[in-house]
């Protein structure tokens, strides 16, 4: 095996509001039955990487629950496997991970005990499908020290929320700025990196010993002239779950055939923890069009242009439009839901109405009960 993986899944995201109050961004439910981390994690195993570390910190319970067993991602093996690293106390100190570089530093043994030549690093809250082998091949072709995956950001997306890179004609990254006020290009880093394992160990030790803890600012940006850092262009589907809008849009994207083809129909498949739910049940008055529906759902009412997760129940005469209903949501009779995100296990009593707008989808917190 040529690479080990690291998935950075510990970050805190303030712009997700209630959705990340009790869960890590990487544990956000996506596309009817997945969690965000299933995408990078499946990319790892589908690329033949059989040793993957997942670094967790903020609201890690939700993620640890999902990652209960490595076998669902074919990582339940004696060679390699899945390593979940959370902050811990030692004899000398007890501290949290102080940044994306520090969290790797505090688990450097994982890298030292590996023999693979490369490390693939990905963030845990991006929805995309990538064969890392192609990126590693590009990295070798360019004889790069570090390779950073990037994409061209479309006009309707605000580039200022990403790490913006500039590259020269040979593909070498000349500048890299995190969330710039005045972006100098329309190319955004995806937070996916390939680097040689010994070099990563050396760089991480150097910068952390200088009191620098951030992978982008203190390593990529600071070393951009000293090291050969190359950009690897990625043109496939990609979404960062950065705020409620991108979360809403990402889920709605699954109603598009090309997105379903990419993630659901085309091999290799996205793997997730199985839940053993029976098939979805459409009862005699159900009217459900342009929706994706997870297993175990029982549908009695109408639903249009919506993403319905596992085990959702909708009552007679209820109408769900342009909404996301997460696992275990119960919608009573005669309810109306428009432009809303109902978090897990929300209960809507008969006749309840939740009407949001496309600009401002309403979020109902996990487990909340809503009455008429």
């Amino acid at each position, binding site marked *: 095996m040529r690479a080990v993986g690291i998935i950075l899944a510990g970050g805190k995201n303030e712009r997700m509001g209630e959705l990340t109050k009790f869960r890590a961004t990487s544990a956000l439910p996506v*596309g*009817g*039955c997945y969690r965000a981390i299933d995408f990078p994690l499946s990319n790892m195993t589908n690329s033949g990487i059989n040793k993957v570390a997942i670094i967790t910190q903020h609201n890690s319970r939700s993620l640890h629950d999902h990652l209960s067993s490595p*076998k669902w991602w074919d990582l339940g093996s004696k060679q390699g496997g899945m390593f979940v690293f959370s902050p811990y106390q030692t004899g000398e100190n007890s501290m949290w991970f102080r940044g994306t570089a520090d969290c790797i530093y505090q688990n450097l043994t994982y890298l030292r005990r590996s023999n693979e030549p490369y490390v693939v690093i990905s963030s845990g809250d991006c929805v995309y499908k990538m064969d890392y082998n192609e990126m590693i091949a590009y990295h070798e072709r360019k004889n790069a020290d570090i390779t950073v995956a990037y994409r061209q950001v479309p006009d309707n997306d605000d580039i200022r929320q990403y790490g913006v890179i500039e590259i020269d004609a040979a593909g070498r990254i000349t500048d890299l700025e995190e969330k710039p006020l005045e972006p100098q290009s329309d190319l955004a880093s995806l937070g996916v990196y390939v680097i040689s394992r010994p070099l990563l160990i050396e760089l991480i030790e150097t910068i952390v010993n200088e009191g620098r803890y951030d992978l982008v600012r203190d390593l990529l940006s600071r070393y951009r002239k000293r090291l050969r850092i190359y950009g690897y262009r990625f043109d496939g589907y990609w979404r960062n779950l950065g705020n409620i809008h991108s979360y809403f849009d990402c889920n709605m994207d*699954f*109603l598009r055939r090309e997105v*379903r083809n990419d*993630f*659901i129909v085309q091999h290799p*498949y*996205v*793997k*997730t923890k*199985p839940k*053993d739910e*029976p*098939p*979805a*049940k*459409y*009862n*005699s*008055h*159900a*009217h*459900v*069009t*342009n*929706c*994706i*529906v*997870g*297993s*175990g759902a*029982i549908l009695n009412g109408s639903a249009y242009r919506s*993403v*319905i*997760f596992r085990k959702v129940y909708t009552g007679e005469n209820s109408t769900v439009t342009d909404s996301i209903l997460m696992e275990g949501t119960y919608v009573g009779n005669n309810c109306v839901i428009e432009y809303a995100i109902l978090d897990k296990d929300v209960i809507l009593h008969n006749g309840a109405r939740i009407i949001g707008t496309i600009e401002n989808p309403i979020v109902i917190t996990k487990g909340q009960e809503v009455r008429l």
Partner: protein
Amino acid sequence: MRKKEMIAMLLAGGQGSRLGVLTSGQAKPAVPFGGKYRIIDFAMSNCVNSGVDTVGVLTQYQPLKLNQHLGIGTPWDLDRRNGGVTVLAPHMKTDDGAWYMGTADAIYQNLDFIDQYNPEYVLILGGDHIYKMDYSRMLTFHKQNKCDVSVAALTVPWEEASRFGVMNIHDDSRIYEFEEKPPNPKSNFVNMGIYIFRWDLLRDALERDKKIHPDSDFGKHVLPMLLNEGKRMFAYPFSGYWKDVGTIDSYWAANMDLIQTVPDFNLYENFDKIYTDSDHQPPLYTGSNSEVKSSIIAEGCEVLGKVFNSILGPEVIIEEGAVVRDSILMENCYVGKNTIIDRCIIDTDCTIGDDVQIGVGENTPNSYKPGIYDTGITVIGELSTIPDKIQIGKNCVIYGKTKPEDYADLRLESGNSIVKKLNANGVRA
């Protein structure tokens, strides 16, 4: 091996010939059921939900799909260090070797497997019924009554009792007589084929009976022998949903039970779930012009047409304008544009073209196997293809990759069959 109090032996080697082409490529326990399950999942899940963590599965007829499905038992959490699932196929021994000749003979040939666990009790199960049952309660009953053998018994309506193996019991549930399909039943307690034996007693009985009957069978030989010897045999009363799915009609009806608004057999409870092998389980999609009513739809389906009163297995595609009614479509089937399907069972991996009609015309029984296909249901075997614009009647059988020239006038009248032979490439074409 560590000692186990009770292990289960699951008989899964039968063909189930009355299911016609559905069991030509797989044993009956491997036949898909209820969209995403296989028939064996019910007995397997019952074992796990009852705390039985060691299951020997006896296979014989067409075991490939069954073996793949069972794997190392992961779907049922039976991938264990000690116990778990073990597939027991007929095998050669130093001086002889034979197929399993009967249900008891199959257990007899695996005495050493059971001995490894040195159990107190052995649970004998079939792999071909749809039900939920807590075997641990049956074990408690077995112990309380100090049974040598306990036999699970279902109460059926009196008029149906003569179709089953009937058990006549005393007031304390002790069995004094077995009657196979009696014309005038004395009881409506019928044998479900689920037994708990004391292992020492069963071991001895199997060895003795094998000397008399090479095709040693529980119902025909072992149970009557033990009854004659005055052993304590009790009927354990079971109440609840229990369906035999041995014929095309009963298989179809038991599937249809699942689509009632509140089904008699509820798979949607949070306890005593039924587990199955679902490695790839994306959500399903119903399109903008679709209509789905009174149906259950498994993972990964794309429904662009209309589906009524039907069961779709995983990853079925129903194209625009197609209508599926009162039918069962198994995994990975494709139904082309404007095709209309009525009362049809379509096995896995079939491709139905555009503008096809299935289930039209008179209800004429099948001329080739009238006893099997006679209730109006047309059955299409696995990996079959039906070209565009074909009209197919009722009680038809199609098995293989058919071409337009296989049909007279692009039609197959009710009661007719097209069953292709396997060619040199292993394809029915």
